[in-house]
């Protein structure tokens, strides 16, 4: 792999994105929702309604699955449970990024008729796809990181005492620095694979939406309290996702058929 070529393409992706910031609006909206929803439910609603979370016996019971040390108040324990569950929302951000950016990656170039001159250069398929993945991954993760910073900062500022400290766990660390980026890589790579196999961006997006199904299932299970992913489970999921990404990368290169893209797509 020639890093100069990847860098050149990456520069193009970033310039393109800077001049088309609206492409990032869906990612930004999901990030804002990932912030507004948990703080609304865990902090604002109880404060305005006058009914603390700890009064709800069901919530108290469900929050036990978080396995939190008993020195937190019921309110704090429920807040911790909710904030940990809503952390999963940050897994959706990269999927949105995949839909917004990566699904256009190859088919968009083809439609703009910029792909043929690009493929006539010495750039290899692997270099092209690497640049496309990084071009979508970096801004998506940057927005996610900003959102996550605000999330954790908001917990420190507004949550009950002890919640912020309890959030600073191996589980949170694994979710934010391993599982979220790995999920981002998988969804972006899958979107790019799809983008190089279909012939219009809408089809790419429609297929791409399917990526959200396993994540939605995971979130429903977590919120219902029927599934609690321990740090070990998250580590295993992270590693598994990285393995899936490697497989998808290989498939993307193998399935990127230059001839078909150039001669069959219109």
């Amino acid at each position, binding site marked *: 792999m*020639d890093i100069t070529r990847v860098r050149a393409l990456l520069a193009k992706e970033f310039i393109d994105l800077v001049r088309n910031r609206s492409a990032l609006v869906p990612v930004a909206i999901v990030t804002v929702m990932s912030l507004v929803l948990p703080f609304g439910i865990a902090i604002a609603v109880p404060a305005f309604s006058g009914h603390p979370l700890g009064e709800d016996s069901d919530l108290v019971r469900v929050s036990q699955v978080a396995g939190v040390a008993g020195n937190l108040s019921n309110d704090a324990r429920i807040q911790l449970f909710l904030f940990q569950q809503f952390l999963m929302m940050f897994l959706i951000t990269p999927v949105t990024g995949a839909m917004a950016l990566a699904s256009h990656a190859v088919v968009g170039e083809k439609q703009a008729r*910029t792909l*043929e001159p690009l493929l*006539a250069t010495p750039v290899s398929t692997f270099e092209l796809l690497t640049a496309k993945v990084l071009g979508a991954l970096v801004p998506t993760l940057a927005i996610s990181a900003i959102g996550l910073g605000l999330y954790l900062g908001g917990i420190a500022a507004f949550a009950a005492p002890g919640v912020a400290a309890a959030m600073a766990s191996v589980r949170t660390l694994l979710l934010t620095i391993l599982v979220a980026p790995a999920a981002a890589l998988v969804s972006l790579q899958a979107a790019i694979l799809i983008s190089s196999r279909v012939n219009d961006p809408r089809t790419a997006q429609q297929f791409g939406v399917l990526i959200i199904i396993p994540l939605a299932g995971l979130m429903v299970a977590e919120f219902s309290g029927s599934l609690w992913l321990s740090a070990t489970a998250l580590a295993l999921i992270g590693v598994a996702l990285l393995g899936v990404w490697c497989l998808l990368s290989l498939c993307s290169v193998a399935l990127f058929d230059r001839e078909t893209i*150039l001669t069959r797509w219109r």
Partner: protein
Amino acid sequence: MISASHLTRRFGQRTAVNDVTFEVGRSEIVALLGPNGAGKTTTMRMLAGLIAPTSGSIAIDGQALTRASGGTLRKRIGFLTEAPGLWDRLTIRENLRVYAGLYGLGDADRRIDRTLELFALHDRRATLAAELSKGMRQKVALARTLLHEPAVLLLDEPTSGLDPEVTRNFRMLLEARRAAGCAILVSTHNLDEAERLADRVAVLHERLVAIDEPAALRARLTTGRLIVRVAGDPAAYVDVVRMIVGPAAALSADRTTLTVQLPGGDRQTPSIVNALVAAGAEVVEVRPEMPALEDVYMHLMEKRVGAAGSGLAD
């Protein structure tokens, strides 16, 4: 140098290019002519290493173009695609900068500046590609194609939609590249351009119908008629010419010109000129009637279609 040997490309049941063999030497421009769907773009794409031939082989400067060698050989090839393919949200300079990176040009900034100067684009270097006219886009695309100073140039319909001034500048630029030793293959519909620009013309219609110098191609359709332009009324000299060519030869006169069939071939030309001068005619021009390249092209196409229709396509 480009060498294509027995190139065939099929798409399913359809054969786009069939057993095409030709070479383009260093410092040579070959124009590829043919109707829509004749296989010009497919041939170009094969030569650029974008699609593989179903059979046959391609060599660039003696090195076989294969999937393995494609990446390396593409550094030596400049391919101007039918559509300019510029990134609209990037400026002219940024578009060139990305390609400089893709070709791994060490002195990218200097080369880009030189290319911008060469194409008189320096003042517009910060203009977004989206804001450019069709001609300007084509010009930038050509600048991009030449940025890495390729030894082989493949140009697919390069002057399509360009105004005459840009077209003329483009021709001068290609002549400069030819002088620099480039092997250049230009696909075009423009017969006048082919005639002006190309050292040889290849006529493609799935197969290679003909390849030769423009003059040699025209000579294939030589009419055997002589054009004589005289001052005054040409009709006054019809009888003089008739005495030399005989009563059966076709002979006509219009406002300025006598057109005469030469049953005895070129050797009758001096006698005709001598007789006209002796008769007091002021001879302004004498030349054999040569068909335009367009006539040759149409003739070759009709022949090809006729042969295909009767199952005699070679």
